[in-house]
């Protein structure tokens, strides 16, 4: 039956492609680890290109501050309104502060920041590296004796892993600030009362959990963006397709990683 044979062949091709992707991603991760942790001590002129890390950090972190703080400010306000409408029924309006503080520092701050960064910078990584590949710039680096992983990927991964937690800190602050603004203007809670409840609700562990997650999210977004950029094929259309895939895959993997983290933290609690 030709239809069945073709379906089996397609399944086989998809499985082989999946194996290739896993092997390539593993090779890329090994390469990143080598140029990040081993090569700077083992090889001459193989250190991390810090000027490039700073340049990328400014683009990923500093330039994203307005959009990250604004979105988290609004989401903090939404969280306060939603939790107030629920908690009012139980006469526990003061717990609005706890709800906003915990949801922001543990989940919303890291997750929303990662989603924004995936859309802004992860896609930019894919487009930049993909366009460089199409213009033979990646080949030019190799033939000059400059390793493309060290030159292009390591600074981006490092900058992303540093910038995303810092953005998350700003996001946490603005989320709580948004919640406070709603609490004191709409819900009629006292300002000091709200702040005291916030301080009681969260401890350093909550913030650190969020920051740990966001550091991993940054690594995921950068690796996906760079991997898809390096593997771009098919000219300008291919660059567009890979850029879209970069956002979709990054957001999927970030949410999946978040699930694993949340389950892990739940179990150790």
């Amino acid at each position: 039956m030709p239809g069945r044979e073709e379906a089996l062949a397609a399944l086989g091709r998809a499985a082989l492609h999946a194996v290739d992707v896993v092997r390539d991603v593993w090779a890329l991760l090994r390469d990143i680890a080598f140029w990040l942790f081993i090569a700077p001590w083992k090889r001459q002129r193989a250190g991390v290109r810090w000027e490039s890390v700073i340049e990328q950090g400014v683009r990923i972190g500093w330039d994203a501050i307005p959009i990250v703080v604004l979105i988290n400010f609004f989401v903090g306000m939404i969280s306060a309104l939603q939790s107030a409408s629920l908690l009012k029924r139980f006469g526990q309006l003061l717990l609005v502060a706890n709800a906003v503080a915990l949801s922001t520092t543990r989940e919303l701050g890291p997750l929303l920041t990662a989603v924004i960064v995936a859309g802004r910078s992860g896609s930019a990584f894919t487009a930049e590296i993909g366009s460089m590949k199409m213009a033979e710039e990646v080949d030019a680096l190799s033939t000059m004796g400059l390793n493309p992983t060290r030159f292009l990927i390591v600074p981006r991964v490092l900058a992303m892993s540093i910038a995303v937690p810092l953005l998350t800190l700003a996001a946490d602050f603005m989320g709580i600030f948004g919640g406070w603004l709603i609490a004191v203007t709409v819900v009629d809670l006292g300002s000091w009362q709200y702040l005291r409840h916030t301080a009681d609700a969260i401890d350093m562990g909550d913030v650190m959990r969020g920051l740990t997650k966001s550091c991993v999210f940054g690594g995921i977004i950068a690796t996906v963006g760079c991997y898809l950029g390096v593997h771009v094929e098919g000219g300008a259309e291919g660059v567009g397709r890979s850029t879209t895939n970069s956002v979709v895959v990054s957001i999927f993997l970030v949410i999946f990683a978040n699930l694993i983290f949340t389950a892990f933290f739940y179990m150790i609690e």
Partner: protein
Amino acid sequence: MNETAAGRQSTSAESAPAREPVIEVRNLETYFGDRHILKDVSFDVLRGEIFVILGGSGSGKSTLLRHIIGLLRPSGGSIKIFGHETVDIGEEEWEKLRRRMGVLYQGGALFNSMSVGDNVALPLREFTDLPEATIGIQVRLKLGLVDLAGFERLRPDQLSGGMKKRAGLARAIAMDPQVLFFDEPSAGLDPIAGAGLDELILRLRATFGMTIVVVTHEMESVKKIADRVLMLFKGEAVAVGRLDEVMKNPHLRVQQFFHRQADEEKVDPRQYLDYLTAGGRREL
């Protein structure tokens, strides 16, 4: 390599002055899946010569170049550069070898995030301890060599196609390489800019005594610059030798190529129908 090509190569070796080979390619084979791209290709590139790899579209000349510069590993055979076998060496050894080589890509491959001057300075900053002032002098010197003096502050997107290639060439020679590779140097250039690039290639060889390997299908350029040529057809080396020798080669494809003759091969209608109905899965 077929007998004709082997014969041509030995004839050329006898007539040319004895020079050591810088690149030695032996029995090179390449497969992409079940497609046989390069078939038993063998040739030498001698020190100080301009060696041109010729062939039509899809003949395998770009694949061959990518093997020689280490961007692609062949399926079989051997490639020696400066006497070092390169087919199975590691990335670290390749990086050292590549510092003795320069490559000019079709579009120049300049980094758009940097100025022209920073592009040329990049290998000097990465591989030498020269002070910035000396690097600046080197950059101006190399840009002057390719007639781009004073352009170091411009960005690549502010240059024309020919200027991009010349700036790419300045970067390729920044570390004074012993071997220089050109991938389709005249592609996309008007005849005047193409001729200018040919002059530049000849000037570089005369000034620095570099070994130069050029991949092209531009016959005018070949006639002007080539010392020896390798002619590829469907992955086979059909002729290797001095240009005048290869031009006399009776091989049909060589004569068609040099005399710009169209392919007179007729397609069998039944075979063509099979090709159409197989949805592209069968070769014509």
